[in-house]
């Protein structure tokens, strides 16, 4: 177990190193000149050269990347080109809002997805089942910005139940979480349905029924706990989906998280911020996957880590 964890951690570090190299190389190769953005249009060639030299952008690629890595191992993400602030501080300031949004989304997708999946499995083969599964397809096929705008229009503009975007109180959190969670709810309802259908076929369920337990006791006491665990273990894998989703959802709702930070940085070619957010996201994705793999054998002892 320990050896497995150690090996996976080393692998994860290598993956992150690879992500940093590829992102850095892409931003180096692509025809975007951050210096032009900083200097402005009317800058003289001399000023442009000075800024380029100051930022170390006139150095060869290896030197630039080496410097970046050297800073990174000391926990230094570099300084934003345009905001004159440490990227680490910028990300730290924005991260709580994004985490809050993700927790909200996880709650939404679990409540919606597990309920839909459970009901569909219990009513298997009926019209209810079919309708719920079509619903789950709609969930995974709906573009998040459209869902966001639709929820805003109905619940904020028309009904005024929630504020139109912004950040702060619990009521600000509801619509963005729901938007981010609907995609996952679609996946979870399908996983939950198939997991529950599998469990209901097992011998121990038949035994429980045969000994005269009430149907509700069989379902909620025996089947549900066994069916729900492997589904919940997938949460770690959602991180990748969330990391893509927050860019859109935060932009629709004006949510001040790292998705917005990245989006603004991309528009201004603020390379240190783009690098920072990409690395933090990749880190979260890798950790999420690792966590999902580590949790699995505890939930299903038949699966062994190797």
């Amino acid at each position: 177990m320990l050896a497995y964890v150690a090996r996976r951690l080393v692998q994860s570090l290598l993956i992150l190193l690879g992500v940093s190299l590829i992102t850095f190389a892409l931003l180096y190769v692509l025809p975007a000149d951050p210096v032009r953005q900083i200097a402005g249009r009317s800058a003289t060639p001399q000023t442009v050269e000075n800024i380029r030299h100051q930022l170390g952008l006139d150095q060869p690629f290896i030197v630039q990347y080496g410097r970046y890595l050297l800073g990174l191992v000391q926990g230094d993400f570099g300084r934003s080109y345009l905001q004159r602030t440490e990227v680490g501080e910028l990300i730290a300031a924005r991260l709580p809002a994004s985490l809050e949004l993700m927790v909200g989304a996880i709650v939404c997708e679990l409540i919606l997805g597990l309920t839909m999946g459970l009901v569909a499995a219990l009513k298997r083969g009926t019209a209810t089942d079919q309708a719920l599964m079509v619903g789950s397809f709609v969930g995974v096929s709906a573009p998040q910005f459209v869902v966001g705008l639709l929820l805003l229009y109905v619940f904020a503009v028309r009904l005024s139940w929630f504020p139109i975007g912004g950040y702060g109180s619990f009521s600000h959190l509801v619509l963005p979480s729901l938007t981010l969670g609907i995609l996952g709810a679609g996946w979870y309802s399908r996983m939950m349905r198939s997991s529950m259908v599998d469990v209901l076929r097992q011998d121990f369920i038949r035994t429980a029924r045969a000994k005269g337990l009430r149907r509700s006791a069989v379902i909620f006491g025996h089947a549900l706990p066994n069916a729900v665990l492997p589904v919940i273990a997938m949460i770690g894998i959602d991180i990748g989906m969330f990391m893509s989703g927050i860019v859109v959802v935060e932009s629709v709702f004006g949510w001040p998280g790292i998705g917005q930070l990245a989006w603004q940085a991309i528009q201004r070619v603020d390379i240190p911020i783009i690098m920072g957010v990409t690395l933090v996201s990749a880190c979260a994705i890798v950790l999420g996957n690792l966590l999902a793999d580590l949790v699995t054998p505890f939930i299903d002892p038949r699966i062994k880590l190797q």
Partner: protein
Amino acid sequence: MSTPSQTSAVIATGDAISPGTPPARRGVVSRLLRRPLAILGIAIILITVGGAIFAPYLTAYSPDEQMFDGLSLEGAPMPPGEKFLLGTDLLGRDLLTRILFGARTSLIIGIVANGIALVIGTLVGVTAGFYRGWIGTILMRFTDLMMAFPALLLAICLAAILSPSLWIVAMVIALVNWVQTARVIYTETSSLSRREFIEAERSMGAGTPRILFRHILPHLLPTIIVWGTLGISTTVLLEATLSYLGVGVQPPTPSWGNIIFENQTYFQAAPWLVFFPGAAILALALAFNLVGDALRDILDPTQTGRM
């Protein structure tokens, strides 16, 4: 999704083929047409393709024409009505016309980007699965690495910096979208190439090309078809998202995503400008998901009802 008749067979044998159905792959189309959801999906796809091809004949307006009577006296877009079926946009252009022409963008990108992604994914997956060894290791480690990228962030970054055109957007989407296919194809190829019939073929002196093209690829075909169909849905959504953020297909070329991008400042007063193109995106993505899922049930019975 399993139908009741299949369900009974599942319990009895653990196999999803219900009695009386022809062996897999024979009559895929006719079996597809027996599923109401698949028919719904096919219908939506056909309507979209028809709308895209015959767009100029289906509407009296041009997608770029800013009409004099397309805006109210106060300069607001017209709501859906008799003259403009789905209303007009902020510039007084007919929304229905833009959505019809936008279908071309969605379909072209959906097919091109997904085609490229499928080719890359299959090449990587087959190569890695067939030549395990160091080539396989390097390819699959690279695939793992791509899995750790926040895909949308990467796509936005690439699209924003390369001034986006239709083809660049398609390339960008293909570059972030081949990873899933590669992993699935890799798993299948590596288990296939360990099977006895491949071993037998090799012992009879068959060369690598023969084994690959006559034995491995035909077995992978169902998987490629299923992932190819499901992938179009992902691609359509990704294109819409990039265009919505303003880094995808650029106006005035209409795309369902950029129609919403152009008009969203006004959406509280003119919600139809967001909801009609939004519904189009949802319908097309849903259609390919429904057909892909039905194909998976038909072509790969062991996967019935699973993700």
